């Protein structure tokens, strides 16, 4: 049985610019221990799907199953790493990692020990007592990963956790994350719009398309690990996925153009200065 199973999930938002079909009939299975990456253009509903899996948002229709049981609310079995880290600035790195452990009801001694262990895992032992603003962006994301791992979740949900970082830092973190994943055997669902990042990290890359957000294609990545972002094989597969993405964008553009074209044609027939196509 799949670890996570997204079944016929649809979700609409009613925003200030009308309604947006963020997800439409999305089906997706994530195997136990799998590193799954979602890629897709901006605004196609990746975050929405991740939030639904996290239990932070409820879908309009469909359901998400974890080990066969429906997900209805957030839980420590599914840790989330948010794009902006979402760490608490009033706590030190150590206390941030301890936070979920405290909510679990662990005693101070055990909390401290576990937090120390996970900070060590992300190579931040020296910065345990630093406040957030004393850490670099990459360090903060590592604290966020340590915090997510500290509760020993079964699933790790990561929403563009490295998007705001520079290329070098990101590369280091790919390595660290891949290593952590191999060591802990967690199931990971990772969102990005960087296709190379997707190929470098994932077992499987799922391509999302926009309007409405749905699964367009899936690519198995059977390249040997460790992988590096500038490997030829990574680049080749990334190119293939990029092409599929481009194709999708072209389709969307055409649809938009189509609408515009009809509008223009209508104007020719019923413009302000015309009656049934004849100039006044």
């Amino acid at each position, binding site marked *: 049985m799949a670890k996570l199973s997204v079944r016929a999930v649809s979700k609409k938002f009613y925003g200030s610019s009308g309604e947006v079909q963020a997800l439409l009939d999305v089906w997706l299975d994530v195997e136990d221990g799998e590193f799954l990456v979602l890629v897709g253009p901006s605004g196609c509903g990746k975050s929405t799907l991740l939030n639904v899996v996290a*239990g932070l948002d409820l879908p309009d229709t469909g359901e998400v199953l974890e080990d066969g049981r429906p997900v209805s609310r957030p839980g*420590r079995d599914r840790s989330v790493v948010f794009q902006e880290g979402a760490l608490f600035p009033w706590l030190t790195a150590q206390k941030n990692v301890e936070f979920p452990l405290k909510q679990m009801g662990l005693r101070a001694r055990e909390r401290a020990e576990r937090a120390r262990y996970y900070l060590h895992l992300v190579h931040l032992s020296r910065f345990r007592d630093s406040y*957030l603003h004393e850490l670099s962006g990459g360090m903060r994301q590592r604290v966020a990963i340590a*915090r997510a791992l500290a*509760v020993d979740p079964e699933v790790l949900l990561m929403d563009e956790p490295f998007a705001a970082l520079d290329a070098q830092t990101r590369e280091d973190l790919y390595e660290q994350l891949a290593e952590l994943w191999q060591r802990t055997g967690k199931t990971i669902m990772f969102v990005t719009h960087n296709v190379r990042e997707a190929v470098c990290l994932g077992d499987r890359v799922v391509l999302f398309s926009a309007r409405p957000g749905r699964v367009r294609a899936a690519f198995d990545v059977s390249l040997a690990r460790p992988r590096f972002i500038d490997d030829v094989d990574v680049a080749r597969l990334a190119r293939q996925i990029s092409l599929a993405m481009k194709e999708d964008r072209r389709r969307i553009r055409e649809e938009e153009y189509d609408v515009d074209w009809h509008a223009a044609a209508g104007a020719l027939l019923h413009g302000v200065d015309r009656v049934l196509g004849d100039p006044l």
Partner: protein
Amino acid sequence: MLRRALFFMALIAFWEILCRLGIWEPTLFPSPWRVAQTLWRTLADRSLLLATGVSLRRILVGYLLAQTLGVVLGVLLARLRWLEETVGSLVLGLQTLPSVCWLPLALLWFGLNDRAILFVVVMGALLAVTVSVHDGVKNVPPVYLRAARTMGTGPVALYTEVLLPASLPAILTGAKLGWSFAWRSLMAGELLFVSLGLGHMLMMGRELADMSQVVAVMLVIILLGLLADRAIFGVLAARVRERWGLAHP
């Protein structure tokens, strides 16, 4: 620091010179020296200390009450929609009312006594504190709350460990504002009837036509205000801002 010291020395010298020129009656325009003497005399006969003590006790009680109520009310207003739509607009309306305006009401309700003054102090500070706390809680980034939910934060911990610490900078701003409002309301209240505090002592100076006492008490009021503002709230706010990573010097 040196510049400031020099400025105040020059100011006092100027004041002394004005007095020496004898344009105004010495009783109406006391020299710095006479003010210092009065300060010393009232300190020695303990009347100044007594008045300061009475005023400080009043403000501490009133302020703590206002601060506690304000934080609770502010948080509730920010979290409960129906309360915000009803009581929230009332609070905004009442906030525009200068706190002395509560005095007639307080006198009718409580009579000429401490409780009336306390009421004015509380009303003076409460609304400012409430509004600041409300703003602070409203401005907590939603992602903190979402993160807290994914970490299994309980309903109580959500307030004590996320919402309140996250809005602490705003709460402190409110605390500082509330203090200055409370201090002003207290002085206004004390001026108006026999009440033994600093405000009353100021009024006594007027009635005895002892201008040096008026000025001496004014100095004490300024000093206490500055002390609270700088030594307590200034230091606290600076530390919180630094830790929250808000300080951008």
